[in-house]
């Protein structure tokens, strides 16, 4: 009886709904519903992206063999070499997670773009030689069918390092070492110049206070880091690497207690999942992975802390943090119509001031690394113009008298992924978190070493040891063993 009462009312309401569906809005609604249903049916067909319940196009895949945290030049270089050196085509699934797809704060795009072989450590010289070889043949390495070639806009003008009386002996021994370091039977081509020779070659320099200068004759100069990044990105995408925009917020790890041969107990950790959180939402995707590579640049310290690196009593291996923190550096662009001409190399003065030519319009780009006391606050990328007025310009004007009258056109700031321990990179696995590899901490020369470091990380991941360049001094364990590997020529 209830059913008989309900049925007419149901019938009437259906009739009412039927009448109202004849109006304009509801007809569109019906079409919208039909297209939704069509989309869902299409997503069931194999080969189509499966968006049956909700759209997952923006999320990373659920499984990935290698997750690279950080999509800058070092992260992309590791992805490139992993895909080049894998034994079978398509053997390794690589995911690159990048928090900011505009690269607005990434050190790569804000870099001055120099590359030099004038380092005091043989490993750094070898990395630079490898990188310059790669950059020279970049269109063979990064060729993608039907895409325009990569134009790096490399200026082979060289680096000129000036040394005062105290630094002259060190400079000379460094140059001797650089000429003997070989990677495929090629040393660095650096020539030493006395103040008189320097004055003859570059008449616009004031050689007061200079005892010795070292000048890179070839394979040194500067290039456009953005085109390298885009070239790597394009090639790496064509090789099948997955890209995802998101932030790594958590590592899900498991530990096992092991006993060393001495009898000591250690806690070995393994990362099983990486939680990648999307921008402006609480949505995250857990990605099951085998290996995690920390190439997060200035923020590598935070990523390492998520994995538990440094959580332990200080002085032990568990308590050794990754000593990489962001440091802000300013770069200024100025115009000087009477300035030095086309032959200007990248000049580094005795007190750390550097500058180079930019383009053909008598513009110059330069700056200075502040001392420990003057370190600016790395919370934001605001530029301090007083720093230029007080700390950079006087030295510029003293070294190049033409720079007494110049006009600053613009300035920007970028981060160094500064290694507070010894200002050299950290490469290789962590001794306790067994599947986390570091490729960070290069303190200002990450861009020029990116290609070599990428290859080194790919080799140690796939083969278990370094092959092309031996970067054993750059392993993480040196922080615990307190073995500093110092680089003297930091700009």
């Amino acid at each position, binding site marked *: 009886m209830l059913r008989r009462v309900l049925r007419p009312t149901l019938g009437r309401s259906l009739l009412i709904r039927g009448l109202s569906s004849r109006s304009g809005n509801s007809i569109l609604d019906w079409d919208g519903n039909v297209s939704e249903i069509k989309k869902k049916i299409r997503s069931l067909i194999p080969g189509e992206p499966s968006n049956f319940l909700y759209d997952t196009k923006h999320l990373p895949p659920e499984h990935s063999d290698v997750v690279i945290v950080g999509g800058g030049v070092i992260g992309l270089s590791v992805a490139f070499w992993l895909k080049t050196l894998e034994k079978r085509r398509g053997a390794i699934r690589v995911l690159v997670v990048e928090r900011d797809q505009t690269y607005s704060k990434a050190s790569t795009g804000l870099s001055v773009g120099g590359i030099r072989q004038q380092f005091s450590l043989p490993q750094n010289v070898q990395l630079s030689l490898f990188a310059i070889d790669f950059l020279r043949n970049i269109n063979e390495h990064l*060729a993608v*069918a*039907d895409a325009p070639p990569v134009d790096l*806009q490399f200026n082979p003008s060289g680096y000129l390092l000036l040394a005062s009386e105290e630094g002259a002996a060190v400079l000379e021994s460094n140059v001797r070492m650089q000429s003997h370091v070989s990677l495929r039977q090629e040393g660095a081509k650096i020539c030493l110049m006395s103040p008189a020779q320097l004055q003859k070659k570059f008449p616009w320099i004031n050689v007061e206070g200079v005892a010795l200068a070292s000048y890179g004759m*070839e394979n040194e100069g500067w290039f456009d880091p953005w085109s390298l990044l885009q070239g790597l990105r394009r090639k790496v995408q064509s090789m099948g690497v997955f890209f995802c925009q998101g932030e790594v917020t958590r590592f899900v790890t498991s530990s096992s207690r092991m006993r060393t041969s001495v009898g000591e107990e250690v806690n070995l950790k393994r990362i099983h999942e990486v939680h990648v959180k999307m921008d402006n939402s609480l949505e995250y995707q857990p990605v099951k992975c085998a290996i995690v590579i920390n190439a997060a640049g200035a923020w590598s310290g935070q990523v390492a802390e998520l994995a538990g690196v440094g959580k332990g009593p200080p002085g032990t291996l568990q308590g050794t943090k990754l000593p990489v923190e962001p440091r802000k550096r300013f770069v200024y662009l100025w115009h000087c119509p009477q300035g030095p001409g*086309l*032959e200007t190399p990248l000049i580094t003065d005795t007190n750390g001031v550097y500058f180079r030519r930019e383009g*053909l319009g008598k513009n110059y780009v330069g700056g200075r690394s502040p001392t420990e006391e003057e370190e600016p606050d790395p919370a934001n990328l605001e530029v301090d113009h007083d720093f230029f007025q007080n700390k950079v310009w006087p030295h510029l004007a003293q070294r190049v008298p033409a720079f007494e009258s110049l006009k600053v056109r613009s300035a920007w700031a970028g981060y160094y992924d500064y290694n507070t321990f010894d200002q050299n990179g950290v490469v290789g696995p962590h001794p306790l978190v067994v599947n986390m590899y570091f490729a960070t901490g290069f303190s200002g020369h990450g861009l020029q070493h990116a290609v070599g470091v990428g290859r080194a990380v790919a080799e140690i991941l796939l083969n278990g040891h370094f092959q092309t360049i031996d970067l054993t001094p750059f392993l993480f364990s040196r922080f615990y063993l307190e073995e500093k590997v110092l680089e003297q020529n930091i700009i």
Partner: protein
Amino acid sequence: MAAPRAVLRLVPPKWNVGRRGFRDLSGVVTPERNLRKKRTLLQFLSDHFYEVEFLREYLLQRQIQKVHLDNRAYSHIESTYGPDIAGAYFVLKHGGAVINYHGLDSLLSLKELQSLSLQRCPHLDDWCLSRLYPLAGSLQELLLAGCPRISERGLACLHHLPNLRKLDISDLPAVEFPSLTQILVEEMLPNCEVIGTDWAQGLRQGPEEQPQDTAGPIPAE
């Protein structure tokens, strides 16, 4: 290799007319051209079949290797007959225009070289120019006309050659501002005669800038 090369001619023609470099296979297209519109058969197949894409990449690598093979150093000739004969042999064997960065090995040991003509070499770029400094003691004449890959950044390394008296940098398509570059190179090398582009070529004249001809006929009304 005749049959594959015939297939590859389906790729659209390139705008750098001249000797065919390995760039042909990689499909250099201007950014403005919409790639979606005019896809050739080979590009279409390449998008849809892994085998065709692999074949194209393989043939590209083969062409690159051929250039490298042509440029290898003839060390046995150099050790038997000396660097001069080795350099001459290199130039005569494949026609010197294949020279690239590695090919310069054969020329850089010639310590008394006075004149070097590198005109219209398609593989010569800024990296190669930075390699010329060992010839600084003797080189007096350098001709670089018509090289498609040399830009003003490579010309900046020519200041290592102080004995240069004659430099030809005309018709360099990759140099953006030819007249300005010529001025800067002349400032950099004060003792050198620089033959560059025509002065008037760099100036753009609009109708309002042309001098008013007051003696001409005044239009009626």
